[in-house]
């Protein structure tokens, strides 16, 4: 489902050339539960952004859901993000002026085709399931970090994605809530067969993933 071949990502900080990703080769199959591990600044987030089509590689080939990404237009890539990928960020990245419910159904507003479900109903169902139903009409700054992260997870699920990418999903919440979030992600993988990729530097979180990919100094390595 995810295939990276010789992917490089280079950018410049002023005069300095930074190689965030070097010759990355990777293959993740449908239904896998993968952890991307590495110290901070190792390039693991860059790797996730490239997999999630949030960023473009400097060179190399990416094949996602059977499509050669370099051949796709920006609109097609946006549409792939919309339909097939769900993101969970360390900073939650909810839109503050919208309520929990409005945040959750926002991806559905950008769908360019007729949806086979009612986003409102689906959102309410998911909110119930994730225990934040009562918070549907609250704004993100009125609920706890754990509840915000659940909201973000529900948002990532609204479009029935094939792939969930989580970037340090427990980084900004306490350990107990973090465990709950991890259980949620595990459950998604087990029950629905959603491919889950988690970027983390926390050993506890890494422990729970089935397959581990190590990144060090921009390179994918067998072990740290």
């Amino acid at each position, binding site marked *: 489902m995810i295939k990276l071949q010789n992917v490089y990502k280079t950018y410049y900080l002023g005069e300095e050339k930074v190689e965030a990703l070097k010759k990355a080769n990777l293959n993740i199959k449908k239904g896998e539960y993968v952890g991307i591990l590495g110290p901070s600044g190792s390039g693991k987030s860059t790797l996730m952004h490239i997999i999630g089509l949030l960023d473009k590689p400097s060179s190399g080939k990416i094949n996602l859901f059977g499509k050669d990404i370099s051949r796709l237009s920006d609109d097609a890539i*946006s*549409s792939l993000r919309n339909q097939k990928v769900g993101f969970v960020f360390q900073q939650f990245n909810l839109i503050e002026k919208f309520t929990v419910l409005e945040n959750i159904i926002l991806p559905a507003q950008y769908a360019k085709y007729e949806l086979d479900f009612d986003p409102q109903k689906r959102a309410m169902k998911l909110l119930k399931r994730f225990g934040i139903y009562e918070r549907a009409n609250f704004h993100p700054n009125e609920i706890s970090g754990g509840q915000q992260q659940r909201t973000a997870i529900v948002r990532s699920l609204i479009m029935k994605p094939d792939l969930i990418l989580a970037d340090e999903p427990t980084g900004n919440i306490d350990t107990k809530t973090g465990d709950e979030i991890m259980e949620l992600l595990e459950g998604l993988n087990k029950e629905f067969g959603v491919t889950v990729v988690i970027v983390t530097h926390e050993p506890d979180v890494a422990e729970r993933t089935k397959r581990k990919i190590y990144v060090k100094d921009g390179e994918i390595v067998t072990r740290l």
Partner: protein
Amino acid sequence: MRYFIFQIKNSIEDFKRNKTRTLLASLGIMIGVLSVVMLIALGIGLKNYIKGQFENMGTNLIMVMPGSGFESGFNAGAFTSSISLDERDVNSLRRISDATYVVPVFFKSAVIESEGEEEFGYVMGINEEFFEVMNASAEYGSILTKSEVQGRSKNVVLGYSLADKLYSDPSLAVGKTIRFNNQRFKVIGVIEKKGDNELDGSVVMSYRTTYGSINPDKTFWSIYVGVNDEDKIESVKLQAEEALARRYDKDDFSVSEQDELLEVVNQIFNMVNGVLIAIGSISLVVGGIGIMNIMYANVTERTKEIGIRRAIGATRGDIMAQFLTESVLLSGFGGVMGLLVSALIVVLVHPYFPIALNFFAVVLAIGISTLIGVFFGVFPARRASSLTPIEAIRYE
């Protein structure tokens, strides 16, 4: 449609959070639209006003004037001329059989004094036919008779506003004595209000009475020729030209119908209107730049939001549409507000001055303000959509 509503809801949500900023941004457009619409309304008002003045003169009027007049277009030198019209010309015009009335018109500004009050006004020297041609009758007292005109009578008739200014009540004017040029005249009547500044502000007397210290050269400013039969206007006009051409060079005088004068006035006002609209448009552009400025700030402030929207699947087009919708709504709102305020002003001022809104002004205002929204919104919107999602999300 659902998408359209979604974008508009998005914008309104944002306006609610930034009420002051929204209002200030629209204010620029509002003032721009207000000035364009009001300037057009004023132009129309002026035109109506002048037209009204013309209509007060009796219809079927031919004016003979020294100089090339209005015919060769309107230029500053039109009224300066070597020739002066006099009684000989009046007599030769009288020989035209279809010319029902021939009125010599002497016209001069003067300071008029009565009972210790001094007022600025005009002196008009005419004959008794003048009242027929101008469709003017007496409000109080009587108008001048033929014998008064022929007998160089010192009786005069006052225009309504002059009588009003000199005496607390125009009806009190009859029987009073007025003075100017060291001569005394007796007021025998007041003409009804005509809406013509000159006539309403004049002392009207026999043209023969002006001979002497007031009009030593015995010349006239113009000669009015009234024609009863509308079909005969053209032929009278030609005959008048012929008659005068025997004495003067063709370029030294002009014979024009009221319609032609109106046309010239229209031409002038179309030009004036154009200039006014151009001036108003400058403020519209300034308002547009204000919107652009706000939208740029908006885009910068909301870069992270843009990134989040992109991450969950918004295309560049979606982001463009979002910011364009906002700027169009902002300027459209300003435009409608400007229009409403203009309408209010027009309603308030209309009783005093015939200004008016026209369809063209309304369409122009709404159209231009929307266009400005699109034009000045495109640049910030393009910037908003050009970042990669991750660049935008990380922007602080």
